[in-house]
C-alpha cells in the first residue's frame, strides 16, 4: 500500500517534473538559438569600409506641402514638354555641327521646337503657384522664355558665322540651369544615380 501510495505519489509528481524538464530544455534551446542568432548577426555586419564623416550641418530637405505638391504635379506636365524640347534643340545644333544637316536646314529643324516652347509657356502661365513657390514659378517661366528666345536666335542666323548659335546656346544653358534648379527643388528624385 505504502509502495502503492508511494508509486501513486511518484506518478502524481511525474507530470510536474516533466514540465520542469521541458521548461529547462526549452530555456536551453532558446538560449542556444539566441546565442547562435547573435553570432550570425555579428557575422552579418558589413565589412568595415573606411568611411569619411558626413558633412557638418547637413540639413534634411523639408517635405512639400499639399499645395506645393499639387503645383509640382501640374508643372511636371509642362516640364516634360520643355525638357524634351530642350534636348531636341541641343541635338538640332549638334546635327548641324556634326555635319548631318546643312545650316539652311537648321531653321526648319528648330521651328517646331519653338512651337513646343510657346505651348509650354502658355500652359505654365495658366498655373497658380502657392505663395511659397511664386519665385520658383517666375524663374521657371523665365527659363521657358529664354528657351523660346534661344530657338528664335538659332533660326535667325544668316551666312557662315555661328555667332547667333553661340548667343542662343548661352541663353539655353542659362535656361537649363534654371530647369535643373527648379527640378531639383520640386522633383529631386527626377534623376537617379547612374
Amino acid at each position, binding site marked *: 500500500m505504502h509502495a502503492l501510495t508511494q508509486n501513486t505519489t511518484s506518478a502524481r509528481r511525474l507530470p510536474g517534473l516533466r514540465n520542469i524538464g521541458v521548461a529547462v530544455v526549452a530555456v536551453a534551446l532558446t538560449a542556444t538559438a539566441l546565442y547562435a542568432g547573435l553570432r550570425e548577426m555579428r*557575422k552579418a555586419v558589413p565589412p568595415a569600409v*573606411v568611411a569619411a564623416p558626413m558633412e557638418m550641418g547637413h540639413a*534634411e530637405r523639408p517635405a512639400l506641402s499639399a499645395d506645393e505638391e499639387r503645383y509640382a504635379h501640374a508643372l511636371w506636365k509642362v516640364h516634360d514638354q520643355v525638357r524634351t524640347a530642350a*534636348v531636341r534643340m541641343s*541635338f538640332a545644333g*549638334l546635327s548641324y555641327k556634326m555635319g548631318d544637316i546643312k545650316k539652311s536646314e537648321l531653321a526648319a529643324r528648330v521651328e517646331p521646337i519653338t512651337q513646343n516652347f510657346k505651348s509650354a509657356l502658355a500652359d505654365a502661365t495658366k498655373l497658380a503657384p502657392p505663395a511659397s513657390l511664386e519665385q520658383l514659378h517666375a524663374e521657371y517661366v523665365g527659363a521657358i522664355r529664354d528657351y523660346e528666345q534661344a530657338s528664335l536666335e538659332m533660326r535667325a542666323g544668316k551666312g557662315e558665322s555661328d555667332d547667333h548659335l553661340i548667343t542662343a546656346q548661352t541663353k539655353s544653358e542659362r535656361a537649363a540651369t534654371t*530647369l535643373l534648379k527648379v527640378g531639383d527643388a520640386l522633383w529631386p528624385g527626377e534623376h*537617379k544615380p547612374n
Partner: protein
Amino acid sequence: MKKQLALGLAAFGLLAGLGATTAQAQTVCSVWLVENSTFMGVPFGMFHPDRSFVQGSTNPRNNVNTVDLPVNVGVIKCGKDLILYDNGWNQTEYHKMTGTGHWSPLSKQIAQLGFDAKDVSKVIIGHGHWDHAGSLDEFPNAILYVQKEELRGIEWALNYPGHERIRAVNDSPGGCSRTPACGYTPKTMDQIYGKILRGKAVIVDGDLEIMPGVKIHAAHRAHTAGSQLLEVNTAIGKLMFGSDAYSSWEAIRDWEVANVQQTDSVQQFLAYEKCYKVTGGYQNCVAAHEPLSYSDKYPLTKNSWVGMNGARLAEITLAPGEQSRKK
C-alpha cells in the same frame, strides 16, 4: 655567315633601340582620385546584382545590405596637361533628399590638390550621364572628349517613334525607369553641345591616342551607347579608367555585371577584359563607384585622406619628379 650574324645583331640592336625610344616617348603621368560625392545607403543588390542581400546569410558576398557609393573622378597630370576623367555633378536639393554626402564643387576639390580649374586642359567623359558629365561649366578652357556613339545613342532614343517607355528623357518624377537614354539632363546635353559649338570638343569615333601613353578605348554599350575607357601610362604601370563601365572594382575582379543601365553585359565584360589585357590584371582598373574605394581593400586607392566636406582623395601614383600633394 659571320657577316649575316653581324647584320642580324645590328638589326636586332636597331629594333631594340627603336622599342626603347617608343617606350620612352610615352608620357608618365601622375594620378589622383577625387570623391566628388557619395550616394549613401544604396541597396547593394541594386548596384551589384550578384551581391544581393540575403537575410540571415553568413556568406560574405550576400550579407551586406546597403553600401555607400563614391562618385570618383580621375585627376591626371601628364607633363603640362591636366586631364579629368569624368567631372561629377551638382544638385544640392537632391543631396538633401537622398542623404547624398561629401559633395563639393569639383573645381574646389581639385584646388585641394593645388590645381586651378582654368588649367584643366582636357575632360574625358566616360559617358554623358548627369552625375559624370555634370560640371563641364567649371572647366571653361578644357577640351571635351565624347564618343560620337554616345550622342548617336541619345539621338536615337530622342527620335524613337515607338512605345513611349522608350525615350530619351524621364517620363515620371520618380526617375528614369531604365529608359534607353535615361540620365541625360538638358543642362548636361546643352553643355556638351556648347563645347562642340565653340570648337572645344573632340567627337571621338572609336579609339584615339590623345598623347603618347594616354589612349581612349571605345567601350560602346558597356554602360551607355558610347562609353569610353581611358588608358594612362604611369610609374606603376598602365591604369585603365572605366567610369560606369567599371562601376565596381570587385565586379571586375569577380567577372560580374554592375550598375546595369543601358548596358550590354557582353560589352561590359569585354571592357573588363580590356583592362586585364592592357594593365595585366584587375588591380589597376579604376572604378567609378567602388564601395571599397579609399581603403586597403581596394589597394590602388589606399593612399587616401579626407578632404573638404568629408570627401576622400587618393594619390595613386606620381610621375618622376612630381611632389606629393597629399595633405
